[in-house]
């Protein structure tokens, strides 16, 4: 076990107070997950990926604090002190222009967010206004503040992608487990089903779902993408279940009287998870790109939520306003690139083949 001690991160594990005590000795904490985590943290790519995704995630989570048509805190006036009125009472600001919304808080002592506009309401600057003090990045073709829309676009992109991927993962684990356990007729049928769904284009599913909607919502996009995404996860889980069924540790667990569900949960799923997680992070990148394509093409009625794809479509329609293309393009580059880097780094970290190779190289360089 020469190389294990050289792995970064492994040294700190000894002092971990939450680690379960075990009589095995010094190597007790070197589980597969810990070594993988160590390798992951040591990778250079992960820093860049986490910075990109982390800042976009913060934008998405705290969008309400960064851009809103109302102050964060306002005191004085009839209502007394109100905290985040745009979140607590969104109906007060719905359909109001920025001037009207700002007039609501005239005479109050207010702490304003950096961008004083919401993503939905057209501002008084008019459509396609150049950048100014009020609108650092100008306004889009519908007169809405571009910066506010970009910030809320992160929420849509990441929300849809994470929702679709997590839902797909859940479905995939359940159905993949069933497919792996089923025998005979159903085994073959489920395998075919997984293959077919896996190769069915997501955009066609989105088109079908969008066609039946009265009012398009981001949720339908999540469901549509999850309908296709589960197949990839199911394929991986099924393969692992089939492989593990004959392994000694599974046979032993069965012999000890473990129920199939417990065997699946404790002994099979942990081995299937690394590829599933990697594929899901790749899935985030793919879903963000798909969401952009769907909004760009205006497949179905426009979403109420802000979307980078919609801004791109405006840029395509109005040549000469490069910022409408460059800004969402850069944000997408960061999101997709970040997810891709993260997935790539995770794949290398989880892959036992790379571990062996690294060990190989280390011993070779040492020799």
């Amino acid at each position: 076990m020469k190389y294990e001690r050289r792995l970064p991160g492994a040294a700190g594990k000894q002092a971990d107070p939450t680690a379960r005590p075990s009589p095995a000795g010094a190597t007790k904490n070197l589980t597969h997950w810990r070594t993988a985590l160590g390798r992951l943290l040591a990778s250079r790519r992960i820093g860049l990926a986490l910075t990109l995704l982390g800042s976009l995630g913060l934008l998405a989570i705290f969008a309400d604090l960064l851009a809103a048509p109302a102050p964060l805190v306002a005191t004085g006036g009839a209502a007394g002190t109100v905290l985040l009125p745009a979140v607590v009472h969104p109906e007060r600001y719905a359909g109001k222009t920025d001037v009207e919304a700002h007039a609501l808080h005239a005479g109050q002592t207010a702490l304003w967010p950096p961008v004083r506009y919401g993503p939905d309401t057209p501002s008084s600057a008019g459509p396609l206004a150049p950048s100014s003090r009020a609108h650092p990045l100008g306004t889009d073709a519908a007169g809405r503040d571009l910066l506010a829309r970009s910030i809320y676009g992160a929420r849509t992109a990441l929300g849809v992608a994470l929702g679709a991927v997590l839902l797909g993962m859940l479905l995939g684990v359940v159905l993949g487990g069933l497919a792996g356990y089923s025998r005979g007729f159903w085994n073959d049928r489920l395998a075919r089903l997984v293959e077919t769904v896996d190769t069915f284009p997501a955009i066609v599913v989105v088109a079908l779902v969008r066609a039946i909607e009265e009012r398009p919502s981001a949720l339908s996009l999540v469901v549509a993408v999850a309908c296709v995404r589960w197949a990839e996860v199911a394929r991986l889980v099924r393969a692992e279940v089939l492989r593990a069924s004959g392994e000694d540790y599974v046979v032993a667990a069965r012999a000890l009287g473990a129920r199939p569900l417990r065997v699946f949960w404790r002994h099979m799923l942990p081995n299937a998870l690394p590829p599933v997680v990697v594929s899901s992070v790749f899935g985030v990148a793919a879903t963000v790109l798909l969401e952009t394509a769907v909004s760009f093409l205006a497949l179905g009625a426009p979403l109420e939520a802000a979307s980078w794809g919609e801004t791109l479509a405006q840029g395509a329609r109005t040549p000469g306003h490069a910022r409408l293309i460059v800004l969402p393009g850069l944000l997408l580059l960061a999101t997709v690139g970040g997810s891709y880097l993260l997935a790539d780094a995770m794949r290398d970290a989880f892959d036992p083949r790379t571990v062996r190779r690294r060990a190989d190289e280390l011993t070779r360089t040492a020799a």
Partner: protein
Amino acid sequence: MLRHALRRLLWTLPTLVGISVIAFLVLSFVPDPTDDPALRARLHPAELSHLRRQRALDLPRFLNVAPRDVRQRAAQAVAALADGGGEAAGARAELVRLGGAALPYVLPALDALAPDPRARVAAALGPVAVRMELRRAEDAGDPTTAVPFWTRFWDDRGVEFRAAAVRSAVQRLARYGTATRVAELTELDTFALDDVITALEAPHDVASGERARVLVDIAAHVTGSADRIAPDASLTDAGACVQRWRQWWTIYRSDFVVLAGPARGAAMLTETRYGKWALTAVTQRLGVDNQGRPVASELARRVPVTVALVFGAIVLAYALGIPLGVLSAASRGRKTDLIIATSVLVCYAVPTAVLAVLVAGRGAHGLFAGMLVLAVGLVAVPTRQQRSAVAWAMSQDWVRAALARGNSRPRALLVHALRNGLLPVLTLASLEPPMALGGAFVIEHVLGLPGVGDPTIAAVHGRDVAWLMAVALVAGAFAALGVIVADLAYVLADPRLARPNFNRKRSA
């Protein structure tokens, strides 16, 4: 291996049926224009039910437990007439519409009615007698003479209302086409409709055009429709008219025929919304879209563009990505590797829409430009996969053995490592087209290529079920074929995989 491939090919059929069922289930929730309350308020209930009938909205989705045929409709109308309530006017019109096809069930049942209702029902059939051009037809409309008129009619002519007699009458008409033959069929009224429409063929020369014209004339006469073929109509117009009549027949067939025995069992499946769609799709080449264009010919024009775009881009991307991956693996840990990794990452993450807009802004159009733009986003996956596959293979014993035997490093790389590394990359290639389709739609839209994308977007807006169903089917067909091709490609790349299939065949 061939048998395996054929078996898989056969399995695509149930797969496609399954896809069509699921897609139809989803699309059956499309809000129909007739659900619009504003329209409902404006239209007469009869018009509304006519519209809903045309869209098969009066039928269940997948299984019709009790399909209604002419017998039930006639019995219902007679009962309503005999009752003499507020629905009598509607029942009278229904009876006239059903016409000759209903006579075998209405006339023998007249005896069972009380004198008053009997006269009402018989008189209601008056317009049918006029339409049939019977002698002294005015008697049939008069309540006092109607009952004896129809009784006599059924005694004299009831024997003509037999399926075999009608079939030979239609055949005679198709062969000789004289006025007597036309009168023969006119007297049978809607009873002959089934055979008339079956005999109706799309015209291809003057003689068949004339035949179609006569048959359409009869059909239009007995149904009171104005859709006929003009004597000087072109073959295309005549063909379109025949097509319209067939379409009409798929909707209204059950009004004029009796469903009994096996036909009833079949009708439980065909007299449904899905059944109607499937019948239209099979007999009329996927039906027509919202603009009235035939879906199949529109697809035949547009699918090749999209397929060329997607597959061209994938071939380009893999032709570039595989060598890049090998190069990347060969120079692992050096600057080349880093440069390749960074550039393919950027290529992957640049949204296709941005690239397409930039390319279109520079005036580039056409299929090849589209392929290039689409390929940019696809290079990353094969490059990375090939890199890790070759890197893994290079650390394996057989490559080490090859090196030890004195093979050069490039030879070990290309001959021994590449082939083994190719397998996972081929798996990926089979998964690529569905991912690339979204990008292809964007590129078609921006570069103005006549692919499947734009009509699909229009279909989503216009809620065009025929087109969306067709697109789902085409996508499913390509998905199923892709799986088979990937299977075969595996075996080509790794002959060991072929063996289990053979073994299974032998033991079976």
